[in-house]
C-alpha cells in the first residue's frame, strides 16, 4: 500500500490519473479524525500537504484555504480579526477516539456542522467556492470568493458531504461571520424529552435569535443567545420569561458548555455504536422513544439526535416511519460496521447519485464503497 502526499493540485491530479489508468482504488484522507465508512481500501492519498490560507479579506467576510490546512489555523487566523466559521464544526476526535489534525477538506467532505447550524446554516451553506480533482484527473473549479454567486450549476454544494467519492477537494472558500462578543445560555432542568423539545421549538419561535437549542442525555435543556453584551442580556431575560411555563430558567454566561454539545462529549470513551439521526425537530421525541433506553443527545431543537446504542441494534428498523435519515458515526474499535454507514436512498434518488458518481469517478477509484456500500434489504 502506497502513501501519496501531493504538495499541490497538479500533483493530486497526477496521482489520480495514474491510479485511474491502472484502475487502482485510492483512499482519500484529510486529517483522519473521523472514519465514517471505514478506513477504505487501496493506496492512501492524503491532502495534508496542501496547506495554507490563500486569501483572507475580513472586510469582505471571506476566507479561502487549501484543503489540508488545519482547522486550528483557520480558527486562530479568523479569531485575530474577531471572526469565525459560523457553522461551528465539531472536533470528532474525542468521539471517534482518534488523533490526527482536523482539516478544511475533511470538514467539507463530511459537511460537518455544529449547534449553530439551525441559525447560521451548515458547512455547505457557508461555502462559496471549491476546487477539486475528480476521478478522471480533471481539475474543476466552481463558485469563487464572493458570497452571492449563481453563475452556472452549483457544484460547491455537490462537493459538501461527498466524502471524497466525487473528487479530491483541493481548496475551499467560505463566508465567515463576526464572532459574537457575548454568549449566554438559558438553561432549564428536569424536563423529559417531549417537554424539552416543546421548550426548544417554542424558543426557536421567539424573535430572540436563538443560536443553539440542545438537550443533554437525561440532563439540562440549553438555549444559546449570542451577540453584543447588552443585547444578549436583554434577550436572555426575555427568553427566560417567554419559557416560564417550562420552569424557572437559569442564565449562564459564556460559551463553554456548547463545546460539549458540539463534540458530543457525552459519548466520548463510552462503549457502543454512535448514530447521528436527522429528523424534523418535533420528531426528536419519537426517535428517543423508538430507541428505548438508549442515551440520546438532542441538538438542533430536537432535529439532530445523537444516539449511543448496542452495536447489534438495528436502529434504522426501529425508526421506520419517521421521515429523515441516520448515519452510523462510530462502531467499537476493531469491529466492522454491522449496518450500512449511510442511509439507503429511495430508488430514484439513488439512481441520480449513481449517475453523478459515474460521471465524476467512472472507474470508481475514489473511496470505493464509502457512500455506496451494498445495502442489505431491510428485514
Amino acid at each position, binding site marked *: 500500500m502506497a502513501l501519496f502526499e501531493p504538495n499541490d493540485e497538479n500533483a493530486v491530479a497526477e496521482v489520480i490519473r495514474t491510479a485511474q489508468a491502472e484502475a487502482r482504488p485510492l483512499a482519500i484522507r484529510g486529517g483522519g479524525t473521523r472514519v465514517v465508512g471505514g478506513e477504505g481500501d487501496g493506496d492512501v492519498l492524503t491532502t495534508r500537504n496542501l496547506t495554507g490560507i490563500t486569501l483572507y479579506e475580513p472586510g469582505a467576510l471571506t476566507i479561502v484555504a487549501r484543503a489540508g490546512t488545519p482547522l486550528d489555523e483557520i480558527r486562530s487566523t479568523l479569531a485575530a480579526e474577531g471572526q469565525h466559521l459560523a457553522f461551528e464544526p465539531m472536533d470528532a476526535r474525542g468521539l471517534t477516539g482518534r488523533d490526527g489534525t482536523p482539516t478544511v477538506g475533511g470538514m467539507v467532505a463530511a459537511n460537518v456542522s455544529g449547534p449553530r447550524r439551525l441559525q447560521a446554516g451548515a458547512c455547505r451553506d457557508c461555502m462559496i467556492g471549491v476546487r477539486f480533482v475528480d476521478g478522471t484527473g*480533471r481539475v474543476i473549479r466552481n463558485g469563487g470568493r464572493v458570497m452571492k454567486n449563481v453563475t452556472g450549476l452549483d457544484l460547491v454544494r455537490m462537493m459538501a*458531504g461527498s466524502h471524497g467519492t466525487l473528487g479530491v477537494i483541493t481548496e475551499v472558500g467560505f463566508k465567515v461571520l463576526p464572532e459574537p462578543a457575548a454568549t449566554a445560555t438559558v438553561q432549564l432542568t428536569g424536563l423529559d424529552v417531549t417537554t424539552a423539545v416543546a421548550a426548544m421549538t417554542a424558543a426557536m419561535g421567539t424573535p430572540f435569535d436563538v443560536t443553539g437549542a440542545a438537550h443533554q442525555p437525561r440532563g439540562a435543556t440549553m438555549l444559546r443567545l449570542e451577540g453584543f453584551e447588552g443585547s444578549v442580556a436583554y434577550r436572555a431575560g426575555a427568553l427566560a420569561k417567554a419559557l416560564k411555563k417550562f420552569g424557572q430558567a437559569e442564565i449562564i454566561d459564556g460559551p463553554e458548555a456548547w463545546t460539549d454539545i458540539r463534540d458530543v462529549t457525552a459519548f466520548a470513551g463510552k462503549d457502543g455504536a454512535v448514530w447521528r439521526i436527522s429528523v424534523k425537530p418535533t420528531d426528536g421525541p419519537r426517535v428517543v422513544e423508538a430507541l428505548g433506553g438508549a442515551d440520546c443527545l438532542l441538538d438542533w431543537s430536537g432535529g439532530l439526535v445523537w444516539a449511543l446504542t448496542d452495536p447489534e441494534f438495528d436502529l434504522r428498523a426501529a425508526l421506520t416511519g419517521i421521515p429523515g435519515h441516520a448515519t452510523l458515526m462510530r462502531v467499537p474499535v476493531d469491529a466492522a460496521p454491522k449496518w450500512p454507514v449511510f442511509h439507503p436512498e429511495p430508488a430514484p434518488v439513488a439512481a441520480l447519485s449513481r449517475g453523478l458518481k459515474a460521471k*465524476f469517478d467512472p472507474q470508481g477509484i475514489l473511496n470505493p464503497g464509502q457512500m455506496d456500500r451494498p445495502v442489505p434489504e431491510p428485514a
Partner: protein
Amino acid sequence: MRMPEPDAAIIARKDQIVARLSAVLPDEAVIFDETELRAYECDALTAYRCPPLCAVLPASTEEVVEILKICHSEGVPVVPRGSGTSLAGGALPTADCVILGVARMNQVLETDYDNRVIRVQTGRTNLSVTGEVEGDGFFYAPDPSSQLACAIAGNIAMNSGGAHCLKYGVTTNNLLGVKMVLMDGTVVELGGAHLDAPGYDLLGLVCGSEGQLGVVTEATLRILKKPEGARPVLIGYDSNEVAGACVSDIIRAGVLPVAIEFMDRPCIRACESFAKAGYPDVEALLIVEVEGSEAEIQEQLEKIVGIAQRHNPVELRESSSEMESALIWKGRKAAFGAMGQIADYICLDGTIPVNELPHVLKRITELTNSYGLRVANVFHAGDGNMHPLILYNANDPGELEKAEALGADILRLCVEVGGCLTGEHGVGVEKRDLMPDQYGPNDLEAQIDVKDVFDPSWLLNPAKVFPLNVSENRRVA
C-alpha cells in the same frame, strides 16, 4: 443573441402534441392559440421574444408528470416558467418548445411553526409565502425586488437573493426540501423538514439550476420569526472610495446589519426626483439597516454611526420614527421605477469582492464614458452584489447592442477582480455566452455532466446557461 434553429419536424407535429397534452389536462390548461401564446413569448428580459409551440398550466405534480412523459416521448423541449419575471431570459421560449407554467400550482400544503417550515406548491408567489405566515409573526427571508410577482419555482431555479441576504442568505440557504419531476416523468423527493441530506447534496444542485435538471413542483421552505423591530440609517459621502471604506469598516467591527444598500450620484438624483425621499445630492449614499429589540437597535446603530462619523459624512440621518424609516427606504425602493421613467435600461447583476468596490465603480464610469452611455449604480454593498443599470434608448437603432456590449464589459470586469457574472439573477440566455469568461472548459464540462445525469435527452430549458457551442453535441445527439 443566437438561438438554435427550431426543429421543423416538431413544429409540424403541433396538432398531435397539443392533442396528447389536451388528453391529460383540462381544456383551460392547454394554450395553443397564437394570440394567447403571445403572453408567453418572453419574460422580463423583453428584448428577446419567441412564441412557444404551446403552453400548459398544470395544477398538480401528477399533471406535471403526464406532461413531461408526453414531451419526453415526443422529443419536445420543455421550458419551465414561474411567473416570468426573470431578468436573464431564463424562461425565454423556443419556437419548438412547450412552456410549462406552474402559476396554477399556488397552494399552501402545510404550515408548521414548531418546525419553522412551510410547504407550498411552487407557483405560489414569494410575497404570498410571507403573507401566509406574517399574521403569526413569521416571514420567508429571501426577498427579491420582484417578490410581489415572482414564483417560488423561479426563486429556486435562479437561487434568488434580495436586499437582506447578508444576514439571511439566499434561496439555497432557506430551502429544505423539494418534490421534483425529472424530464422522463420520474418523481424525486429531496430533503424535507429535517436539516441535512443523507447522501450527495442533490437539493443543493437543484437550487439555482435554472430549470436544467427538473421541474420543481413543491418546496419546503424555512420560515423565521420576525425580529421585534428594524431601523435604517442614511449616510451620505462625497466619494465612492470613502463610502466603500465605511462599509468594510462596519463589517469588520463585528456588526452584521440586515442590509447595506449603496447608491451612486446618478441613481440618487433619479430616485430623488422620482420619489422625493429627501436624499442629499452626494456622490454616494448608504442605507444601513439593523434589526432587533429597541435596545439592540440602539446598540448596533451606535457602533455604525460611530464608524460612519470617522469617515466624515456629508449627511447622516438616523430614523426616529416609522415614517422616517419609510422615507429613507422610499427612494431606494423606487430605484428601478425611477430609472424606467428616464430611459430603457439593462440591469446587471455581477458580484465583486467588497474591497474592490471603489476600483470597480471607477472603471465602470470609464467604460460607460467610452461607450457614450449612462450608468446608475444601486446595489447590495454588504455582499458585493452590484446592480449597474445601463441606460439606453430602445428606439435608437443599435443602442441596445451598444448597451449589451457595455454590460458584457462590466461583467468581465467583475470576473477580472475576482467576482462573478451573476449574484442572484441567473445566467439564462443573457449571460450564457459569457460563461467561458468565468469558467474554463473543465469547469463547464463538469456542470454539463450534471445536466447529463438529470436530463440525458437535453430537453429541459434548451439553449440556456451553457454556451451553445459547448452544449451542441449534447443537444443534437
